[in-house]
């Protein structure tokens, strides 16, 4: 049971970490791009929205599996 909980923590933690790093880079680049070429800001925002959707797809699946382990697998394990 302890190992399952560690696995859940790792899945959620690393998922959040990866997403956070990706979004920090993405947000930083948006600010940079908007400062360089303000006329492109709306276009950059749209593209960023698209990339953001792809960026957090895999971590979200990991989170879903973590929740499954936490709420379905772990309660069934012997203590």
């Amino acid at each position, binding site marked *: 049971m302890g190992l399952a909980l560690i696995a859940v923590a790792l899945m959620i933690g690393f998922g959040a970490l990866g997403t956070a790093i990706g979004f920090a880079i993405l947000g930083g680049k948006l*600010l940079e791009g908007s400062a360089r070429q303000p006329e492109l800001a709306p276009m950059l925002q749209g593209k960023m929205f698209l990339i953001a959707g792809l960026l957090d797809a895999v971590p979200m*699946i990991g989170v879903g599996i973590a929740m499954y382990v936490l709420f379905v697998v772990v309660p069934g394990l012997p203590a």
Partner: protein
Amino acid sequence: MTAENERRIPRAVHKVPTPPILKIYGFQCALVLLASVMLIPLDKVTAYSAVIGGMISVVPNAYFARQVFRYAGAAFAREVTRSFYRGESGKFVTTVAMFAATFALVQPLQVFVLFIAYLIVMLLNAVILARYAGLGKKI
């Protein structure tokens, strides 16, 4: 300002077109519901598992889209980035909460169908957004 002056002034160069968020996510909701209705004769549990999986994908994405396009334009770059971060953290928390609530409260549940529906709706979302961007319709 006279009507003539108004005509001379060019339209706002930085007019920001926002994507039809309601249309995109409404379409996804409709598709999920349609798929579940088609699954009802097969198995009730499969049908509602598919609905839940689809909604776990649609609701946080809609919230994120709403947050991202609250502000637009270079003048609001800082606000755009801030609302972007807020939207992402909200999306993460909402997804975790919805998965947790589903696994804790819904019994019986077809987990495989739930995850497949979640994946399909997520891919559908990416395809729709890419299509909007790819066709030159500014999103």
